[in-house]
């Protein structure tokens, strides 16, 4: 057909368009997220309601509701959760502050990394439960060992994320900031930490989660109130309903922490909201 020998034959043509990407409607997003939990709740109601499961193994929704009312009125559940949250947030704040400071130092300087990275990597694999008897021996049975245990546990996730986040901040941007006269604490405050914020927020998420998890260990130490105290007692007396209620409370706390961090991200990182839409 053609006179030119150097023209490559394109062969039969195919449609150029790929598959259409279907983006699910935004307004049904919540409903889709709820499918999983609702399905589990339905299954639970069905199996316990039909008597397939022994109530002492898994109470029915109604039985759990009664247990909840009992906990709320007789044991002042709200106050217990408040005590636990106060412990978790106080200890967590101390731990995260330490983790942030050490992580920033390790991420910025070789010296910082050499000084305490190995130590922290060793300590972070120690289980909290193993530390409880040690803390009792060293620090007694007051509030201090509980707070320090929580602080220690929350320090590690923040350290790991802060050091990785700071290390990954674009060196070229830091160099430019230096060439425009920024140095020392001001460079860290105005450039390094804002750019590491996404990692710091991940650290915050993990640390908040750990801060309530470690309550179980911390409130073994002569506690008379709190989520960990309730769980430890329920474990001793085999109160399945109390354990389940505590688990639900943990789930709700986790959800609240996640929503809180998301809101905080929007407030602290306004420059990222514009990018997501692009």
């Amino acid at each position, binding site marked *: 057909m053609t006179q030119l020998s150097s023209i490559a034959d394109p062969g039969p043509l195919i449609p150029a368009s790929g598959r259409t990407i279907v983006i699910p409607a935004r307004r049904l997003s919540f409903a889709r997220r709820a499918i999983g939990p609702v399905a589990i709740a339905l299954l639970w109601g069905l199996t316990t309601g039909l008597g397939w499961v022994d109530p002492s193994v898994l109470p029915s929704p109604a039985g759990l509701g009664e247990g909840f009312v009992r906990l709320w009125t007789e044991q002042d559940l709200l106050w217990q959760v408040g005590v636990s949250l106060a412990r978790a947030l106080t200890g967590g704040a101390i731990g995260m502050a330490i983790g942030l400071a050490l992580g920033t130092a390790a991420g910025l300087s070789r010296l910082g990394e050499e000084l305490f990275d190995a130590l922290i990597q060793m300590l972070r694999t120690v289980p909290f439960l193993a530390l409880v008897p040690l803390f009792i021996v060293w620090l007694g049975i007051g509030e201090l060992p509980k707070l320090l245990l929580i602080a220690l546990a929350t320090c590690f996730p923040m350290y790991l994320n802060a050091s990785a986040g700071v290390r990954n901040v*674009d060196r*070229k*941007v830091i*160099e*430019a*900031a*230096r*060439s*425009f*006269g*920024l140095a020392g604490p001001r460079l860290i405050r*105005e*450039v390094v930490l*804002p*750019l590491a*914020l996404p990692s710091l927020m991940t650290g915050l998420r993990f640390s908040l989660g750990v801060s309530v998890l470690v309550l179980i260990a911390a409130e073994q130490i002569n506690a008379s109130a709190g989520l960990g105290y309730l769980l430890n007692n329920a474990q001793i007396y085999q109160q399945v309903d109390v354990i389940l209620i505590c688990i639900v409370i943990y789930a709700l706390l986790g959800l609240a922490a996640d929503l809180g961090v998301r809101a905080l991200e929007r407030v602290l*990182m*306004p*420059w*990222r909201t*514009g*990018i997501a839409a*692009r």
Partner: protein
Amino acid sequence: MLNVVAPQSWRKASASAATLAPVSVRAERLTRHFGGRPVLDGLDLSIHAGEFVALLGASGSGKTTLLRILAGLDAPDHGEAWTPRARTVVFQEPRLIPSRTVWRNVVLGLDGAAARRDRAVAALAEVGLSHRADAWPATLSGGEAQRAALARALVREPRLLLLDEPFAALDALTRIKMQRLIASLCEAHGPATLIVTHDVDEALLLADRVLLLRDGAIAVDRRIDLPRPRRTGGAAFDALRTDLLAELGVAAGV
């Protein structure tokens, strides 16, 4: 050691008069090794106030190393360089801080009255970007981001402006606009300017003087007396272009 030499203002009268102007940059026997290989090898250089100097050279010839030494971002192994205290850099990438709005990027590191919004906006107006003062850097186009970086350099009223391939990452049309902008801004403010580039046309469009770096030293130092405003093409332009390309090891085109 980097010291200060005559940071006084100097208005450029003409390209040839610039040789009589005070010295803005003096470098003596600069040597810098990387991994045993000398990138700069006893380099001498002086640039006068108001002079626009283009630094050409093949990849890895040490152009950027020289600029970084003059910017105070790197130190020579031997030799000394003196520059004005007020020196600023525009890098190949804009290097804006994503967490600060454009105008806060412009006044980055400044204090007090110098860090005021109106000063930043005035500098942004000079590069035609005042309407984006409150935008986030991530929402800027490549050309806009580079103009913001230029405003950040100009707001400091530099006596030495160092440009490290500032247009290399821009598209061809934006590059032409940016070249004109730089030429007019340097004419208006009159700093000594050193632009690192591998683009011979760019060097000939902008510079009063073209330096060519080879084997760690200045191999060619040529004054460019083409009339301004300049455009590519024309016999004189083409002759200079062919010469410089030959010096860079590129034979005349087919």
